[in-house]
């Protein structure tokens, strides 16, 4: 579908790696409305039953006799169904039709819980098929994973867990027991992997290399923007000549940021410059490459004081800032991995978002150019022998 990543701007959302697509936002409202409706509906039903209406009494009795686990599974399926139906206006063609079928199916199953005994197996099939279809759509690039889609899959996974436990039984032969123990973790793992692959394999215009969100900018640089970008590059080069020797940088207050030995680049940061805004005389960090002959200054990194605060981009699309998101940061060291689409990190680390940054490479950065988020892989390999 290629849903645009426009999302909701401002706290608490801002932009993030998995934000909320504008055509998906109504689904959140629909889900909240459904929960309110169910609360009012069952309250009203009990009121009518107390006044002696036999049909209401039967309905309330059936509801009360249903186990809590089953009731919750029903509510979760109703939620998923409502979300799917609320998403129909933003999805055309086959996806829209499938959303209608899926939504009605979930609502039917959610209601069937209270009136039949045959709902469990169809619910397992429906939930599994829906999750699998979403993964196919995401991996194929027909749908962009956003927080509404991921939250919906989480709801469906929890519903699946509930449905699997209903009358799940205990005991049985070992293959059955093994399957019962591993089926759900396997479903969660495959779902996570699928969303991850889809998100990383099909980044849109505002999502660059893994974990980086790009500043929204115009498509083409104007002549004055090209001139401003050239000025920024020249000013940065002039300013950085005094820091060719890392000892000079340290003397000026820069400190090497802890980094893995495997990382070919070292960032020297200066906290005293934390509040300077794109000042070539006071860059927040200097970037050195680990070469065979020692550290070599390759660029500067400008950084804004706060998360979500994009910096001035004098060069328009040429000087596009980026912000790293979804990084699992360990305070035990500067170790990183990427958080899962379900916003989880390994124990001992936490998800962080860095304030926006702009690199200015003072060496020839190949096809990436002087303001790219990353050093060109070929250039980096030639410099450091590592990629």
């Amino acid at each position, binding site marked *: 579908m290629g849903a645009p990543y426009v999302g909701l701007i401002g706290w608490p959302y801002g932009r993030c790696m998995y934000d909320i697509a504008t055509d998906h936002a109504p689904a959140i409202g629909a889900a909240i409305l459904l929960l309110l409706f169910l609360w009012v509906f069952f309250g009203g039903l009990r009121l009518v039953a107390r006044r002696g209406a036999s049909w209401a009494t039967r309905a309330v009795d*059936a509801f009360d006799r249903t186990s809590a686990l089953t009731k919750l599974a029903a509510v979760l399926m109703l939620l998923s169904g409502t979300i799917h139906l609320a998403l129909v206006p933003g999805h055309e063609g086959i996806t829209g039709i499938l959303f209608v079928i899926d939504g009605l199916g979930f609502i039917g199953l959610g209601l069937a819980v209270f*009136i039949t005994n045959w709902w469990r197996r169809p619910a397992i099939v429906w939930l599994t098929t829906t999750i699998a279809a979403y993964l196919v759509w995401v991996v194929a690039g027909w749908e962009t994973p956003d927080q509404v889609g991921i939250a919906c899959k989480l709801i469906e996974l929890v519903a699946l867990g509930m449905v699997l436990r209903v009358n799940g039984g205990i005991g049985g032969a070992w293959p059955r027991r093994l399957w019962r123990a591993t089926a759900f973790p396997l479903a969660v793992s495959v779902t996570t992997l699928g969303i991850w692959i889809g998100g990383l394999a099909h980044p849109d215009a505002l999502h660059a290399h893994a974990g980086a969100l790009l500043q929204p900018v115009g498509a083409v640089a104007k002549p004055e923007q090209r001139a401003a970008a050239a000025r920024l590059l020249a000013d940065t080069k002039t300013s950085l000549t005094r820091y060719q020797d890392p000892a000079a940088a340290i003397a000026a207050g820069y400190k090497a940021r802890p980094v893995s030995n495997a990382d070919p680049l070292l960032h020297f940061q200066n906290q005293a410059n934390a509040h300077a805004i794109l000042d070539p005389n006071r860059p927040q960090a200097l970037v050195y490459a680990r070469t065979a002959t020692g550290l070599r200054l390759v660029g500067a990194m400008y950084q804004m004081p706060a*998360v979500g605060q994009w910096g001035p981009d004098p060069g328009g699309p040429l000087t596009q800032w980026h912000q790293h998101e979804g990084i699992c940061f360990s305070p035990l060291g500067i170790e990183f991995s990427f958080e899962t689409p*379900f916003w989880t990190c390994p124990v001992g680390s936490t998800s962080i978002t860095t304030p926006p940054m702009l690199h200015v490479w003072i060496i020839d950065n190949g096809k990436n150019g002087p303001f790219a988020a990353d050093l060109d892989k070929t250039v980096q390999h030639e410099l450091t022998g590592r990629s």
Partner: protein
Amino acid sequence: MKQTPSTSSAFEIAGVLVVVQASLSLVAGLSALPFAIVEPGFRVLGVATIATAIGMYWLARNLRRGRRWAWRWLVTVEVVSLAMTCLLALLPIGALRGPVPLLVNVAIPLSVLVLLASRSGDRPIPAGPAHRWSDPGRAA
């Protein structure tokens, strides 16, 4: 209307939610392992996360079997988890943004705690003989 027998309980639901949490932890631990190739520190974190996930599966299993010590451990784990989430939410690091982190890091742990607190509710079906709500410490 067809009646469905009431075979589950608050603890049964809590057990399922803990399994969801454990599965999410397991995936986080497994996802750290590729990074462990270049980052030795992540080997420790990845393995610790997988061990935590296995521990949570074990606690969920024993909660469903009515073990008192599992209840205590889970209350501790969920309280610590929520406290850490609150602490991280106060820091300007963008740890909680959007419905998914709110569901995973706030709604699920809070729901588990509320369900665990409803001890007077109907109990799980006994899975085995004579060890429902047994406390190894007390038994000793």
